[in-house]
């Protein structure tokens, strides 16, 4: 049946991809929610347009299917349209079905990376460390023209974008933690914190220990989102099975907490991968029910207010606010942490243009979005902004440096960890 899901779990129940796309009645109420429509004014780059095009693709009514590529590949998969839609038409999943229909062979880089992540993790880590070392020595900048020359401008851009170059990965640190008898939670390390931002993962673990007591590191692999978005569904399924097995083996009855919203949203959607495998669907459902994103953990946690915080605002990572409905939770936590330093951010739930590999595939559109985002942050007066997704951290770090260098970006977990540590020093126990 090829590399297609064929059936989706929608807000209205399980539907064929055709029925899911046809549920769009073209009312257009999603238009102003769609970041690419808002910045281009082009219906082709709107949620409604994309749903209609996928529907035409499924109906076989486009004589030149390749002409739909731009429309489908410029989708951020942010899900803002679904949140604005009365029928909650699942545009992101529908667009992905459309992309898979269009592309016979997945992107070679995505494929390579997926294979490395799934089967040769040790080799991948070695390569990354070498690259990070080279980056620290300023060598990779020299490689950029070569990357562009061999047709990998995205990789060159990615190299330029990413400012972090850790030489010790998160999983290596967490594996050294002593065993715990009755774990209250398990930590899922997404690739972002693992390979780029170990400090985020360490913060999340510290927060969990402070709020919930002892827990375990799942020592998970990749969640499979990369393969789901850019590669092969079967690879995504294989990775999902491995994660589920890890969860089942971990012995934790508490929540599975991850600190990249794109990954946690995807973990929660695992059942959709197994609609034709009833046994795995049940296991995926059990697992998905245990998954929590950081904003959920912090929503009503007893967080002390951070002292001496500069003017602060919060950017909603798309897959937290649109994908998981966590806007209220995230803002509640951010407000409590920042106290009087908190500033409202207009359009806080509009995508920053990070969106996984989007910034590297659609640099111009991505730049329009981050420029708009940086402008809103600057207008709020904030000097510090937090988010909950890895793509946002990368994109905001590089965009703010370019357009509003007075402001820094951190993960919500880092702020919470700082506040809890400060509370402990002040003698205010967590929970007080």
């Amino acid at each position: 049946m090829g590399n297609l899901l064929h059936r989706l779990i929608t807000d209205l129940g399980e539907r064929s991809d055709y029925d899911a796309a046809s549920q769009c009645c073209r009312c257009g109420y999603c238009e102003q929610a769609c970041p690419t429509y808002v910045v281009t004014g082009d219906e082709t780059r709107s949620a409604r347009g994309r749903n209609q095009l996928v529907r035409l693709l499924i109906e076989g009514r486009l004589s030149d299917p390749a002409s739909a590529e731009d429309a489908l590949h410029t989708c951020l998969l942010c899900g803002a349209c679904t949140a604005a839609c009365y029928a909650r038409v699942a545009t992101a999943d529908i667009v992905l079905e459309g992309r898979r229909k269009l592309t016979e062979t997945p992107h070679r880089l995505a494929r390579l990376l997926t294979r490395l992540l799934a089967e040769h993790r040790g080799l991948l880590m070695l390569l990354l460390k070498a690259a990070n070392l080279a980056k620290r020595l300023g060598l990779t900048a020299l490689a950029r023209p070569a990357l562009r020359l061999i047709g990998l401008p995205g990789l060159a851009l990615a190299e330029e974008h990413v400012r972090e170059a850790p030489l010790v990965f998160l999983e290596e640190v967490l594996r050294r933690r002593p065993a715990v008898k009755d774990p209250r939670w398990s930590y899922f390390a997404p690739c972002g914190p693992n390979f780029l931002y170990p400090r985020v993962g360490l913060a999340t673990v510290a927060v969990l220990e402070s709020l919930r007591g002892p827990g375990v590191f799942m020592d998970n692999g990749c969640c499979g989102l990369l393969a789901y978005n850019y590669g092969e569904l079967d690879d995504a399924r294989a990775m999902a099975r491995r994660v589920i097995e890890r969860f089942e083996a971990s012995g934790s009855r508490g929540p599975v907490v991850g600190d990249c919203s794109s990954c946690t949203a995807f973990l929660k959607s695992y059942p959709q991968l197994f609609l034709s495998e009833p046994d795995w669907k049940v296991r995926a459902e059990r697992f998905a029910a245990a998954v929590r994103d950081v904003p959920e953990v912090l929503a009503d946690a007893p967080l002390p207010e951070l002292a001496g915080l500069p003017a602060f605002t919060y950017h909603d990572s798309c897959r937290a606010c649109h994908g998981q409905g966590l806007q209220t939770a995230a803002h509640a936590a951010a407000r409590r942490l920042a106290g009087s330093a908190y500033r409202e951010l207009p359009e806080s739930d509009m995508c920053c243009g990070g969106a996984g590999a989007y910034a590297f595939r659609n640099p111009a559109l991505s730049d329009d979005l981050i420029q708009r985002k940086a402008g809103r942050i600057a207008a709020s007066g904030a000097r510090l902004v937090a988010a909950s997704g890895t793509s946002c951290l990368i994109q905001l770090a590089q965009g703010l440096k370019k357009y509003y260098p007075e402001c820094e970006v951190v993960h919500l977990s880092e702020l919470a960890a700082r506040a809890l540590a400060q509370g402990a020093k002040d003698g205010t126990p967590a929970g007080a």
Partner: protein
Amino acid sequence: MTKQDIADLRASLPPGTLLTGEAQLAAYSYDGASRRGRPEAVALPRGADEVRRVVAFCADRRIPYVARGAGTNLSGGSVASRGGVLLSLARLDRILSVDTAALCAVVEPGVVNLKLQEELARTGHYYAPDPSSFRVSTIGGNIAENAGGPRCLKYGVTTDHVLALEAVMPDGELVRFSVEDAGPEVMSLLVGSEGTLGVVTKAWLRILPQPAAVRTVLAGFPSVEAAVSCVSAIIAAGVVPRALEALDRATVATVEAYRKAGYPGTEAVLLIEMDGTPESAAREAAAVERLAREYGASEVRSAEAVADRERLWEGRRGAYAACARLAPNVLVEDGVVPRDRLPEAVRRIREISARHGIQPALLFHAGDGNIHPNISYDERDPAQCARVKAAGQEMLRACVELGGSLSGEHGVGTEKREAMRWLHSSRVLRLFRDIKGSFDPEGSANPGKILPDEGGEAGGGPVRPARPLSAQAALLAGKVKACAAEGRPMAVVGSGSRSPAAPPGCAELLTTGMNSVLDWDKGNYTVTVEAGVSVRSLRAELASQGFHLRWPDLGGTLGGVLASKAWPGLREDLLGMRLILADGEVADLGGKVVKNVAGYDAARLVLGSWGTLGVIVDATLRLHSSAVELPAAGEPKAFCAGPWQRRVKQAFDLKNLLNPWFHA
């Protein structure tokens, strides 16, 4: 379009402005209605000059073009049904200025209604028109459709809030029209013309200060009749709510199944919202609550705080949403009847629905008789589609039969084109075609919209019998016909209260003797009056029974007041007009409903026309339950016809027989 056409058009525009890929054309082949049509190119201009270039190019090569904003149109008006160029105005999206002292905002057409509201809210102001699509629909689209919304009961529809327009006319010229222009007022004609007469590139809009207080009342009634009687009682009591929405039981059940809003399960639910000072809003809310109980409401709730009011609105706002979840598509039909005919309209709609096996959810803007049956269906099922469409058309026909119109706020587009024959006589349709032909001789501006094709009267003519002419009016029409046959010029003197004496050689047309009140609909708050009636005596008669015209003191006859546009505000309460045209035929324009977007706004065009377009026989006016003091109006001014007023004249009176000296 030939390949050469596309290449030439592309060369005349900046890079990235013209889309021609198959998928791109497909993404511009629909709007919010059901019919599709693929354009041959999509233009995304950024400024009026680029719009002008596209229009001039299309006019020159007789290529159709369709202007479009957000593409949320519910009548198919923004679909390229005859190919050509789809002209998207989404990138003309700047708010150019907000003048809170002059209460005016200047915007480009692609500005989203909500964005304007957000900008105005910063200074405590707002723009009154609030179509349900306001979060995404554009001001340009709102103007093209003369959009309404819940708030228009108190504040009027889009046309009442447009002060001036800059438009690219079908010949490619950029022209500014204002409500203050002397003579036939082309600006009002452009509003609601669905892009068939010009493309708006800039709009001067009236803005209002936000009210200090708002109160919302929700009430459940045992029957639709009881609810509508209560609506009439509220208005008779001198309360003009800013919104007066109704839902029937089926709608409430649909909403409650989706999102528990806690609405009463009664036959009808009314949502009534008052604004003003805290005192007036509280007083009016109390009056409304009392009246609701008096008219049998079992459950009455009231709210003042924003969050509480929002909760009361939740069911109303969720109604369309709930329908959109029942099936892939929703036909939102849009009929309008005189308010007191609503219960009958509901009976007819239910009977039609039962016959076609459909279950519509009924939503009303009850205050102005606008009814929206929402019918969920799957467009992929041809049989179901046919049933739904047939039922929708029958519902419209029923509204027309009940004295109403085909559309209150969604426009005609392609979906109601054929139904126009039920509402308008063939003479009125010809007048509309003549206006279109005179403005757009190449027929390039959004062809195939609003007007049914010539001939093809198989669908039958008007379903409402024409009102008989009074003996005097019939005589006058005969005289005009005779003069027209001879090619003899005529002087429309009316009662002579304003017009100068007829020049020699002209036949005099007098309206003396045409001085009756033809229809005083006290339930619907409208009055139809012959042209020869003295305005002062009419006002006295109306006031004696608690009905008011919100005009300053104006002397002379009604016909004279209207023909000379003795006060610019007349347009707001003019609902309909009967006119003897230059050929002696009679045209019935508009009607007894306060919202009507079925066809060109030709009645308003006659204001200030000084007898050059036709002889006013009678006019239908909106009445108010309370009077307001207004400063005296200045002296009406004669006019010197501009080029577009000349085109109007050509459509009405090609041979220049009526008051010919204006166009000498």
